[in-house]
């Protein structure tokens, strides 16, 4: 099966000096949930920003490689047109319009060409029945979990073929995160869309993903089926915090990192 999204040897440089991404290649096929793992600064968010067309805002640009979506090269397309093509990003923070009500947040979304907007709005409420109860509530007054629901719902109204989710779990209670993760699976199963999930929480991401990539220092260091990644000793040790047999840390940096992570 051909890839819906194909990122090829992507290299991104910030402000002419700092290379944030050094030749990342990854792909996502139709109907897949793909996890992108890595610690802070590994290049996960930069990859998402490159795909959704927001690099220019940070004085960053693609210096090598290309991003193809459904065979089309995405370079030099403004963000709103990328959304209309069917790639919708749920950002890490500032993901709802706080002064708008829940319904207004959904109204603000522009549905892609040929999408049945009414059906999409119904779907959004079906996935998140809680939002239907909170229709008139100002988004700024929602809890973190409700905001994440609203952000996902607003993205669904855009009619995505590829949903980019930046840090689903950030700042949310584990129970809420598990629930949201299950909704993502449900959304994928019902709409048949592809989801690219960028996460620090590897346990959650790998529990719902079909495949995954692990980024470190702007490179893909590991990739494969989610099951394989779950059982990989490095992932066990550094991302899942499991007490695997391998106890020797490969280098001080990673040792410190995992200490910081789980300490």
């Amino acid at each position, binding site marked *: 099966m051909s890839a819906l999204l194909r990122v090829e040897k992507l290299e991104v440089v910030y402000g002419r000096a700092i290379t944030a991404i050094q030749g990342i290649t990854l792909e996502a096929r139709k109907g897949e949930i793909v996890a992108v793992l890595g610690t802070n600064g590994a290049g996960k968010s930069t990859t998402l920003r490159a795909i*959704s067309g*927001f690099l220019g*805002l940070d004085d960053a640009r693609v210096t090598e490689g290309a991003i193809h979506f459904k065979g089309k090269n995405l370079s030099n397309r*403004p*963000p*709103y047109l990328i*959304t*209309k093509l069917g790639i*919708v*990003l749920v*950002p890490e923070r*500032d*993901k*709802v*319009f*706080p*002064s*708008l009500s829940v319904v*207004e*947040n959904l*109204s*603000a*979304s*522009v*549905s*892609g060409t040929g999408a049945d907007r009414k059906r999409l709005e119904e779907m959004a409420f079906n996935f998140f029945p809680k939002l239907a109860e909170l229709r008139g509530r100002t988004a700024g007054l929602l809890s973190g979990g409700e905001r994440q629901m609203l952000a996902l719902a*607003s*993205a669904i109204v*855009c009619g995505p073929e590829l949903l980019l989710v930046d840090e689903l779990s950030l700042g949310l209670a584990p129970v809420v995160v598990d629930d949201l993760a299950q909704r993502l699976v449900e959304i994928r199963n019902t709409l048949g869309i592809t989801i690219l999930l960028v996460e620090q929480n590897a346990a959650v991401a790998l529990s719902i993903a079909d495949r995954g990539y692990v980024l470190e220092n702007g490179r893909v260091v590991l990739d494969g089926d989610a099951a394989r990644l779950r059982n990989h000793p490095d992932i066990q040790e550094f991302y899942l915090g499991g007490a695997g047999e391998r106890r020797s840390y490969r280098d001080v940096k990673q040792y410190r990192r995992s200490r910081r992570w789980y300490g």
Partner: protein
Amino acid sequence: MQLAINIAVLAAIYALIACGYVLIYRVSRVLNLAHGELMMLSAYLLLTTASLFSKNPLIAIAAAIFLSLCVGVLVYLFLMRRMTGEMVLAAVLTTVALGVLLRGLVVLVWSAQQQNPAQALGWVNYSIPVFGGRISAAGAALIITTALVYAGLFLFLRFSRYGIRMRAAGQNPLLAAQRGISLHAIYALAWGLSTLTGALAGILISLDSGLDSTMVLIGLKAFPAALVGGLDSLVGALIGSLIIAAAEVLMIYYVDALLSDVVPFLVLILMLVVRPWGLFGTREELDRV
């Protein structure tokens, strides 16, 4: 009673102009300091269309409004669009330059003489008796127009999808783009609406009291009205206009007519000292300027 009527008319004038400032500021954080000039341009355009369609005053007015709308959208497309992503200050300075340019252009094309579009249309500005006072026909039209414009804007921003998108884009342009909203389209819409309301104000004022290049000053006096209310709030603009108009009319009546051009700015300074973000504005909104 006459005092109350005068206040109402002046407040309507300021409110109609002030909503133009608010619309553009709210979506793009840019203060359009050429708003007064654009408003004046509309009145002069009416002068021209009035001579073209001298038999049909309403067509002349509609044509002038349409032309003004085109000017607004063109200003956005050829000037302000290039400012997107630049510093807000650069955009504001551009509007200042545009204002100076328009002022010069108007004198070049239509001369600096006092003009009277009402006469050109063959209209007489009747004085109508109401509640023991008198109001000019154009003054009454101003009050009605302002009420309709505010009601329309309120409904548009509250219930229409594009209105909601305008509010969304004003709040978080980045997220708006992520949701597929074309910021350029929204900004162009804001400029169009802003010049449209400005045109209505300019045309009605010129029908009420004639037209020369001092009309710019009225546009400038409406700016304190917008600021006193809080630059990002339409309700604020309405109430700010009422405050400024009341202060101005009362000062003229009880103290000295010469004060009329000073009072709005006195109120503005007072407001800036006490509550810089305005009566209804959001505090952090103003911090970003």
